[in-house]
């Protein structure tokens, strides 16, 4: 009865495997780039004894970029996993409740009105505030309903409204350069991120991550529907509040430093699920690690693929993600 089956061994290896993958991705992110650095210079820079150029490249450019990638990827992976469980919908992702679009709108407003030029923190702060405003709107629209469909419909409304705001900004952009700047930001990138960006993203991702990671039991109970979950002692109103605030703060903070990066939150839970018992709680932590690893690897690819004008991360995650997703779905022969 308690003999270890093959799936169980897979389950046991999942977390150590993902941790190794993430460490490898983070290592590559620090070690690889357009400027080749010998291992000795790399280690020298990391230990604070290297030459000035190596120090600038590794500590001021690559390290913050790697940390931002890990934080953003972890948040997107985790919130995708939580939302798929909460809405009981395999198509759910961080943008489904409007949080990422609204955060993007906040950032676009900062660029449009030139606030981003005035102070470096203006863009991320506006993005986070805008994400929270979207959350408030979502609450008004969804009312007291606990049905996942109502939430999705309200989320689509919020998301579309924010999208319209972004289009309006592009439409009314005073000059092509402003429009270009907005477009570039919307494509999503973690290039040229400084340690300041890490300090903006970190608290948001920590707060959001803690709120979401604690929802595992409630998400499991929701596999039995709302009545089933309530009769197992789940406070559905509390769980909803927790998840919405977690997503708004966490994803808002992530989008604030990286721009809109799609597909990670949608794909990662699907890639993880076959290695677990498929219960919503089992994919939370693995999705967080895998999201971080995937985004970091995609960012390494951005740097290594030679293109005329630099490739944007959001473009790469989409191009990498969709084929991976399709192959996975065909092998699984079902959606979830």
């Amino acid at each position, binding site marked *: 009865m308690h003999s270890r*089956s093959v799936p169980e061994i897979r389950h046991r290896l999942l977390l150590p495997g993902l941790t190794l993958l993430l460490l490898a991705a983070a290592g590559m992110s620090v070690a690889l780039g357009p400027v080749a650095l010998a291992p000795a210079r790399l280690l020298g820079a990391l230990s604070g004894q290297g030459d000035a150029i190596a120090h600038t490249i590794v500590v001021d450019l690559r390290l913050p970029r790697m940390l931002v990638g890990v934080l953003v990827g972890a948040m997107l992976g985790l919130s995708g996993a939580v939302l798929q*469980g909460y809405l*009981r919908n395999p198509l759910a992702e961080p943008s489904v409740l409007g949080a990422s679009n609204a955060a993007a709108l906040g950032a676009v407003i900062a660029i449009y009105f030139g606030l981003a030029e005035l102070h470096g923190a203006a863009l991320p702060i506006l993005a986070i505030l805008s994400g929270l405003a979207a959350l408030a709107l979502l609450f008004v629209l969804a009312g007291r309903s606990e049905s996942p469909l109502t939430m999705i419909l309200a989320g689509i409304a919020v998301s579309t409204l924010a999208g319209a705001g972004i289009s309006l900004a592009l439409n009314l952009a005073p000059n092509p350069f402003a429009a270009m700047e907005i477009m570039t930001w919307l494509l999503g990138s973690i290039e040229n991120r400084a340690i300041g960006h890490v300090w903006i993203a970190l608290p948001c991702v920590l707060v959001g991550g803690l709120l979401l990671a*604690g929802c*595992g*039991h409630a998400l*499991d*109970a*929701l*596999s*039995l*529907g709302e*009545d*089933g979950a*309530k*009769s*197992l*002692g*789940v*406070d559905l109103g509390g769980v909803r509040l927790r998840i919405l605030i977690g997503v708004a703060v966490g994803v808002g903070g992530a989008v604030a430093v990286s721009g809109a990066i799609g597909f990670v939150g949608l794909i990662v839970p699907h890639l993880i699920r076959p290695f677990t*018992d*498929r*219960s*919503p709680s089992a994919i939370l932590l693995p999705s967080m690690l895998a999201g971080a690893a995937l985004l970091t690897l995609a960012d390494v690819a951005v740097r290594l693929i030679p293109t005329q004008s630099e490739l944007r991360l959001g473009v790469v995650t989409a191009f990498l993600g969709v084929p991976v997703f399709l192959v996975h779905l065909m092998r699984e022969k079902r959606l*979830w």
Partner: protein
Amino acid sequence: MVTVSLEGVEVRLGGRAVVSGLSADLAAGSLIGVVGPNGAGKSTLVRALMGLVPVSGGAIRVDGVPVGAIGSKDMARRIAYLPQGQELHWPLSVERLVALGRLPHLAPFSRMTDADSAAIEDAMRRADVAHLRHRNALELSGGERARALLARALAVGAKGLVADEPLASLDPGHQIDVMELLASEARNGALVIAVLHDLTMAARYCSRLLLIDGGMPVADGPPADVLTPRRLADTYGISAFIARDRAEPLIVPLSRIGRDIRPD
């Protein structure tokens, strides 16, 4: 021991009174059947009992405490609930599904203990799904899944059990198994409330039946007293063959009365 008392319970859904004027004391150690035609308010009544819909009049007390005043986790540990239908949103294994029943006993972030595993094993054995433990619950037959969901409710280990149509999609053998199981829970001191459509099964196994129609109580008492030809005609609109030569009546519905349902 769990006791439930209903005092003039009224439940309104969308402005319409779905249950009204219902009073009953439900004592531990009995298997109580809730019967009545479709739309009579049976499911709404048991949902109100579980605190899933608010009562708009009267009171429902569990162990003397109004349902609204009992914390949701506390309530979950007192009374397990098997909802109507077979809602399951993820392809969980049967073992994992049954394990959901232990959630009311778990603190946040904590994992199952040996006591939890024992309760899960016991519940799977009693509902006859232990051999299905590694199967995907979404790929089971309707009857197998109904038993797996019943095992999930049993795994809670509560002193009360409310089951909404536990016999739906079960074959006769497993219908008998499930009724025996509910009756033995009651014999062991639990309060078991089951919404049932099979009147013979209800009459054979329940110690008491609550017949409701249009949200109102019609009859309350031992099955043989409740299920009379007159009441079957008034509530279900059927004539039935009732054999009273056994300890419990056997009821075989024969035809509709007072309504022409023949197709043209």
